[in-house]
């Protein structure tokens, strides 16, 4: 599904490269569900990347695939390159050595994933001992002690006093448990952190604290962060770049600025329109219809039934993720509906036929003016 040549970072400075990731699930009654359909993106050290979408779009499955944590009825294809080497190549055996030590995950509902009968600090120390990290290497005599000390440091890092670590999870509030879960994920000093809906169940004030924490961690530790969420404003404020997923594929990707100010895919635009804003009086709209079933092949654009700016090509041809290039930008500027100069970002791409030059467009009337029809 991806035809992208210039997506992502310039000059191969990527820490993590995901290429053409597909995930299929074998269904109990036979048949397969194509949950992830060709997802790819790059991540540099210290970068915060958002993976946005609604339930069923495949964002959680994507990061689980990156960690090799899929159930037995899953089949994966594609590459996940960590510092150049594909960790998926050998299946579970090639992923395991990197799990937690290079790439770690904070699960959805992590605050409920803490073991209630063990102290918080012991749970953070556990992966340190298991992976022999941070001074708790196998040769070390006092592994447990070194691990505890390191666990205490991690708690301080996430804003919990180390002394509080001797308490049990039920004595922690929701926000503190989420921090503890983040500390646990950081136990073995990974380079990449995947966070699945880390702020979803939290109050807005606690959410702000966690968002602040994640930004601080990526800036101070050079941690690369993939933030999976349905919450667009959180991504807008925390992440530098993001990808919007729909029906298992990325429909638009680029910097968060580009996604909001130069939206190229109708779904992205409608998603923003469906998100109420505190101070604007714009009408909040909903998107009619439901996402397509992924257990059948889809012809044409998967967003077609719900899109408000369809052209004739949309029915027959599935749009590929294509870079928003200089030509398109210039054409838009000529047609007068993009004010001011815009840099061409090689990292901005969308999977929409309207983003490309079209010979003839039969459009269904829609609120915004149509894009220019011919491009040089």
């Amino acid at each position: 599904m991806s035809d992208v040549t210039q997506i992502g970072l310039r000059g191969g400075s990527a820490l993590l490269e995901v290429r053409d990731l597909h995930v299929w699930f074998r269904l109990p009654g036979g048949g397969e569900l194509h949950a992830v359909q060709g997802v790819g993106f790059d991540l540099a050290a210290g970068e915060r990347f958002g993976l946005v979408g609604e339930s069923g779009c495949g964002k959680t499955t994507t990061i689980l695939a990156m960690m090799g944590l899929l159930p037995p009825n899953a089949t994966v294809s594609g590459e996940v390159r960590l510092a150049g080497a594909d960790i998926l190549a050998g299946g579970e055996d090639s992923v395991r050595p990197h799990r937690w030590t290079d790439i770690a995950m904070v699960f959805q509902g992590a605050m409920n994933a803490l073991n209630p009968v063990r102290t918080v600090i012991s749970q953070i120390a556990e992966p340190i001992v298991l992976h022999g990290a941070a001074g708790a290497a196998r040769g070390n005599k006092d592994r447990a002690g070194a691990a505890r000390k390191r666990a205490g440091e991690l708690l301080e890092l996430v804003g919990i006093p180390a002394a509080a670590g001797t308490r049990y999870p039920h004595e922690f509030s929701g926000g503190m448990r989420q921090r503890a879960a983040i500390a646990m994920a950081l136990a073995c000093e990974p380079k990449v952190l995947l966070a699945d809906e880390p702020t979803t169940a939290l109050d807005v004030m606690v959410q702000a604290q966690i968002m602040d924490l994640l930004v601080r961690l990526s800036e101070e530790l050079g941690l690369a962060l993939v933030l999976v969420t349905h919450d667009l404003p959180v991504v807008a404020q925390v992440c530098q770049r993001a990808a919007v997923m729909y029906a298992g594929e990325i429909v638009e990707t680029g910097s968060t600025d580009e996604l909001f100010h130069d939206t190229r895919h109708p779904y992205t635009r409608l998603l923003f329109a469906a998100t109420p804003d505190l101070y604007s009086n714009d009408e909040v709209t909903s998107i009619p219809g439901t996402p397509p079933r992924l257990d059948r092949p889809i012809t044409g654009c998967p967003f077609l039934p719900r899109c408000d700016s369809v052209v004739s090509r949309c029915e027959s041809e599935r749009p590929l993720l294509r870079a928003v290039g200089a030509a398109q930008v210039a054409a838009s500027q000529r047609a007068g509906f993009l004010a001011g100069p815009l840099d061409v970002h090689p990292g901005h791409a969308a999977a929409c036929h309207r983003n490309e030059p079209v010979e003839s467009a039969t459009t269904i009337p829609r609120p915004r003016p149509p894009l220019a029809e011919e491009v040089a």
Partner: protein
Amino acid sequence: MTTDSVLLQVANLRTRYPVRRSIASRLAGRPRQWVRAVDGVSFSLRRGEMVALVGESGCGKTTTAQTILRMVESSGGTITVDGRDITALPERRLRPLRRGIQMVYQDPYESLDPRFRVRQTIAEPLLVHGIGGSRRERDALISSALERAGLAPASLYLNRYPHELSGGQRQRVAIAAALALDPVLLLADEPVSMLDVSVRAGVLSLLDALRKDGRLGVLMITHDLSTAAHFADRIAVMYLGRIVEYGPAKQVVNDPRHPYTKALLSVVPDRDPRVRRAAQILRGETPNPVSIPPGCRFKPRCPIAEDRCAETDPPLAAPASDDASGREVACILT
């Protein structure tokens, strides 16, 4: 815009839960402690109006709704619905009045009996209250409730089971079940927080439309200030069992007076990445309603607190400035 009659009047409502004591504490004669979930809440709701109770978890907004519904017993104050004091009515006398107050719950995946078809779910309230003498009459009422809730044609949904419906559709079925009794007051507890973003506006617009056609008043419980700002007429911001700010929605959002409201608004993330608000992130988390400090309960976390704040418990009153637009703030510093 609509009739001016006050539908719901809540005055100084209190609800508290006892904290379980161990036998040792009981024997030692230590006084019983109470969780003061709702600690003196007063507001009103008119027909055709939507009031949003906004706050973080533990502020008492859900308990307030449950108390109004009489699912939980209050320990003080009064609840008046359509002129009648229902605070202490015995269950038998309350039952016929239950028709008029209906609640829509947060979890659309749990609020419908998985074994009941849509028709049966909506028929149930009718059967309980003996409305609609024949099956045909009931079916007509059911279909009209479904269509009022946006599920048209009703025949498409009548025989489905909940697991055959999407989250948004389930929530609409729950709303239809509430509408079947033709209530005057609708309590919506986080009606869209478990739905996908693209579906939320549809359900919220439905609630909006329902109260605009004049008969219904809607009390919406939510933690989402943006939603409240968009759909509600008035917002009541709650903290630790009290309303700390109350007024017309747009005014509360654009010109907040209480420091808690200001802090809350400042940490709501904006969907425009270029907008970077100066976030006033308060330290710590909402304290336990068991141990509410004397004086202003917000003082421990308040960025502008002074010493005198610990001496007086500020009442919810019009602010010192000459604002006559129905604003109320519980702060002695504004």
